[in-house]
C-alpha cells in the first residue's frame, strides 16, 4: 500500500507539472494578452508547479517518515484540476470571459492538458475518497 501511495503522489506531481508547463508555455506564447484568461494561465501554472513540488516532498516524507501530507493538499490539487477542466469545457461551449476556442486546439497542448488534469483529478480525488472511507470505517460506532 505504501508503494501505491508514493506512486500516487508522484503521479499527481507529474500531472501537475505537465499542466503547469503547458499553461506556462501558452501564457508565454501569446495567451498573456487575453483579458482574465492570460493572468489565469499564469496563476494556474504557478500553482501547478508549487503543488507538484509539494507532492514530491510529500512522497519523500512518506518514504522517510510514513507521515502523510494534510488532506488539504490533495483537495487543492483536485480543485485545481477540476477548475482547469471546467475552464476548458466553458471555453469550448459558452465561452469564458469572452474567450472561445474550438475542439482540441491548440494542439497538442489542449489534449495533453486534458489528460494530465484528468489524471490529477482521479488520483487526488481517489486518495481523498479512500481517506474518507478509512475515516468512516475507523470512527467509533454507537453501541
Amino acid at each position, binding site marked *: 500500500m505504501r508503494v501505491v501511495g508514493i506512486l500516487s503522489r508522484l503521479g499527481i506531481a507529474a500531472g501537475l507539472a505537465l499542466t503547469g508547463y503547458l499553461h506556462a508555455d501558452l501564457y508565454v506564447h501569446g495567451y498573456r494578452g487575453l483579458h482574465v484568461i492570460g493572468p489565469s494561465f499564469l496563476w494556474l501554472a504557478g500553482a501547478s508547479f508549487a503543488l507538484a513540488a509539494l507532492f514530491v516532498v510529500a512522497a519523500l516524507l512518506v518514504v522517510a517518515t510514513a507521515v502523510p*501530507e494534510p488532506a488539504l493538499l490533495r483537495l487543492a490539487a483536485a480543485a485545481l484540476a477540476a477548475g482547469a477542466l471546467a475552464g476548458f469545457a466553458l471555453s469550448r461551449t459558452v465561452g469564458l470571459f469572452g474567450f472561445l476556442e474550438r475542439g482540441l486546439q491548440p494542439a497538442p497542448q489542449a489534449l495533453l492538458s486534458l489528460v494530465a488534469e484528468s489524471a490529477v483529478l482521479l488520483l487526488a480525488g481517489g486518495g481523498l475518497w479512500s481517506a474518507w472511507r478509512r475515516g468512516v470505517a475507523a470512527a467509533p460506532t454507537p453501541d
Partner: protein
Amino acid sequence: MTRRQLLRHTAWFGSAVVLTVAGGEVVSHVADQPVPAAAADPTALRFVQVSDSHLGFTGPANTAVEESFGDAIAQINALPYEPAFVMHTGDLTHLSTAAQFDQVKQMMHGLRTGQVLTVPGEHDSVDDAGQKYRAAFGAGTRGDGWYSFDTRGVHFIALVNTLSLEKLGHLGTEQLDFVRQDVAGLSSDTPIVVFSHIPLFAMYPAWGWGTDDAVRALGYLRRFSSVTCLNGHVHQLFTKTEGNVTFHSATTTAYPLPQPGRAPAPTPVTLPAGKLRDALGIREVSYRAGTRALAIKDRTLT
C-alpha cells in the same frame, strides 16, 4: 486541532503560497524576455510587414494617421538592408475612397524595397466589395485578390478573408480550393507563410477576431513542417502556436484597439499624450534557409 497539527498545516500552506508566487514570477519573467533578434545572416530572406494604416481616419486616437504611416515608411527605408518586399496586411484606407487609395499608393511608392504587396482589410472594401482596392493593388492576383508566390525557398500565400464576412472573417470555397491546389505540389519541408487581414485563428471571436472557415485552409497546410500566419486587423501584437502553425498578429501604424475583452467593443483607444507611438510599429521578418521558424522582430515607431 493540536498546536503541532496547526504548525504542520501552516508550513504546507505557506510553502504552497510562496512556491505559487515564485512560479508565477518565473513564468512572467520568461514571457517578458525579448524575442531573439532577426538573423544577422546577410543571405537571409528579409521582409517587412506593416498593417492597418487607416488613411483617412479622423479621431482623437490619432489625429495624423498619414504622418504616422509616413514615419513607418521612413523607418523601413532607414533599415540597414533593403527588404525583399514590404507586405501591408490590410486596412490601408479607412473608408475605401478613391482619394484614400491614391494617397496610400503614392506613399507606398516611396518604400525602398524590391516589391510592395498587400492584402485587403474590411476597411478597403466599404460599399464596393473591394473593386477600388483591386483597381489599385489587384494586378496579378486571382479571384477577389488572393495570390501566392515563392521567394528563396519560402512559399507565400496572400489570402482575402474580409469580403464575405458576417461577424468573422471568411475565405469561401473558391479561395479554399485555390489554397488546396496551390500547395498540392509542394514538398512538406517547404516553409509556408500565409498573409491575411483577419486572424486565421480564433483570437477573440466575440469581436469577430477569427475566420470561420480557416480550419479548412489550415488543414491543407497541416503536412508542412513550418507554417507561419501573419495578420493585421487587431492592432496589437499577439502570438500563438497551434501544432505546426504559428500565428503572429501585427500592430498598426494608425491607432491601438483594446486588448480582447478589456472594453465593451473594439473601438479606437486614445492613449495619453506621448504614448501613441509606443503602440504603433512595423515588423521585420527574416528567414534563413535550413531553419524551421521565421525570426520576427516587432519595432515601435521611432
